[in-house]
């Protein structure tokens, strides 16, 4: 596994761990209304946790394979470009959903979290595509 494959796998893991936990906590309580929940502190905490996790894990990965960490050749760029296209398509769908929610005048909490869910899902799709393309071309 190259640095870039490990990086993609790490990002997927961190997204699932941090934002999976975030959404479980957000929608976890059946006995309370989601729009009453003070989601902003939890969201800020999740973003800080995700950023720290990604930074530390990438420093560790770079120490494992220092010669690959800053190397990006044409295959890496092609794979990254195609994976970003897939992620971008998913993000586009998410934006359409969010626009629909906005037009329907849904509460802000749902709009903000639908957008966040779209961002996370798009990033997971992009990173998973990278892994798939690396596997297919190696």
């Amino acid at each position: 596994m190259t640095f870039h494959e490990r990086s993609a796998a790490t990002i997927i893991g961190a997204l699932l761990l941090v934002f999976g936990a975030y959404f479980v906590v957000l929608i976890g309580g059946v006995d309370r209304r989601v729009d009453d929940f003070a989601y902003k502190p939890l969201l800020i905490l999740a973003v800080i946790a995700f950023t720290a996790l990604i930074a530390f894990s990438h420093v560790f990965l770079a120490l494992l394979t220092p010669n690959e960490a800053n190397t990006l050749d044409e295959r890496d760029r092609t794979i990254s470009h195609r994976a970003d296209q897939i992620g971008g398509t998913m993000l586009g769908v998410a934006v359409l959903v969010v626009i629909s929610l906005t037009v329907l005048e849904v509460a802000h909490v749902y709009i903000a979290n639908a957008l966040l869910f779209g961002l996370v899902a798009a990033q997971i799709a992009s990173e998973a595509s990278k892994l798939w393309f690396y596997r297919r071309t190696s």
Partner: protein
Amino acid sequence: MKPTRVTNRIGQLRREAGGVSQGELAANVGVTRQTLNAIERGKYSPSLEVAFRIARFFDVGLDDVFAYGDDD
């Protein structure tokens, strides 16, 4: 990314050149060893520029390194 129909003789040329390693060739043409391995195994089709760099490394023509598979 579709499988490529471009075939190559990189492995044979490396052996004929006295056992040039994939890493050495990769460093000379500006790709990672993993990418060169993917090219050599026909899993990834290189850009024209990298293809020319590989041919130049072995001091042969592009046709001596790469060929395009038959339609059949």
